[in-house]
Structures are given as C-alpha cells and as structure tokens.
C-alpha cells in the first residue's frame, strides 16, 4: 500500500486590518487551500476586525482614499473584494481564529464574528502552529 501523502500545513498571523494585509492573507490562504494545503489564520489586534461580519477594510494611511480604485483594478483581473475572498476561504475549509484578548480590548463579541470563526488564545494557536510546515506573519 502506498504511504499516505502528508498534508502540508500553513499558519498565518494577521495583526493589521487594512485592505492590503487583508487581501494578502486571503490570497495566500486561498491559493494554499487550492493546492490541497491545510490553512490556519489567527486574527489579532487590528486584524481581528477582519473576521467580523461587517469587515470592510480600507487601504492604509493616505491610500485610504484610493481603496475603491484598488478594488476596481483587482476586480478587473478577477480578484473579488475582501468579503468574497473570505467567503471563498471558509468554503475552501480555511480555519479562521479570533484572538480572545483582542476581542476584549476591541469590544468585539462572539455574535459579531463570522460563522465558523473559532475564539482562542495564544497558547491554543501556538499549539496549532507548532505542527505546521510554513508560518507567515502579516502585520
């Protein structure tokens, strides 16, 4: 019998909630999931807002005003906006986590989170990340 193929695992930490960081994390995540990899994303600090139902990230700093233009240009090459990317990620089985401390600090409640998002702390995420093959920090 052939040896069972090992599934490659990826851990991503997102600590910023701007449009660029949001899109980077999910474009990596959705590609990895499409390659058959198992993906875990931990959302902390300003990244937490990305896993709330009302998430609508804007480009950072002065570029905030150009968010619409970025979105339009990406849509023109088939890359949909953040809410669509997030829906796709959840459909592809990407695991999303919300940092419990950030939730307390930022006043985000469990019911504000997208369905499927798991609330945990650093120890639980580190326990997951310890068994991954690749780790990304987006912040």
């Amino acid at each position, binding site marked *: 019998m052939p040896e069972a*193929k090992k599934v*490659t695992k990826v851990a991503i930490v997102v600590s910023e909630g701007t449009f660029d960081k949001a899109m980077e994390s999910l*474009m990596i995540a*959705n*590609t990895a*999931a*499409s*390659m*058959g*990899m198992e993906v875990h994303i931990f959302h902390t600090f300003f990244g937490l807002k990305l896993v709330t139902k009302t998430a609508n990230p804007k480009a950072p700093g002065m570029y905030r005003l150009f968010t619409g233009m970025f979105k339009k240009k990406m849509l023109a*090459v*088939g*890359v949909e906006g953040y809410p669509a990317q997030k829906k*796709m990620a959840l459909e592809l089985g990407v695991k999303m986590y919300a940092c419990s401390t950030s939730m307390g600090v930022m006043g985000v409640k469990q019911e504000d989170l997208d369905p499927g998002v798991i609330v945990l702390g650093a120890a639980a995420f580190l326990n997951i990340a310890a068994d991954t093959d690749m780790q990304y920090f987006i912040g």
Partner: protein
Amino acid sequence: MDKDETLDSRGLMCPMPIVKLAKKMKELQVGKVVELIADDPGSKEDVPAWTQRTGNELVEMRQDGKIFYFYIKKKQA
C-alpha cells in the same frame, strides 16, 4: 492534445486561475484532461507548481504569444 473540458481563465490574474483550476479538478473524474487557457504571466510557473504539489499530471504546456495552454490530467487523490 485531447481534452475533456476547457477552463478559460484569460483576463484573470493570480491567484484566480489556480483557485478556479482546483475547483474544476475537484469535479473531474480520474483520468480526465482539462485544458486551461491563461494569460497571467505568472501561470507559467504557477500551474506546474500546482500540479507538482497536488499530484496531478501536467501532460503538456505550450505558449502562443502571451497565451498559455496547459493540459492537466487528474490523478488519483
């Protein structure tokens, strides 16, 4: 090159051709061949990387100007 299905991803850029290819391959039976048409210059490296990583077979790849044609056979998962 014989093919069972065609996926035209012209106009789409990374990562959409790969995301759509993965979705299409899931629906396909083992042994069937998909023709993927792409004009994302990154696809020249991305598609072979995807087939290598997922264990599917890139039977043929050719380039016509700025357009790439990939023939990918679905292998046993």
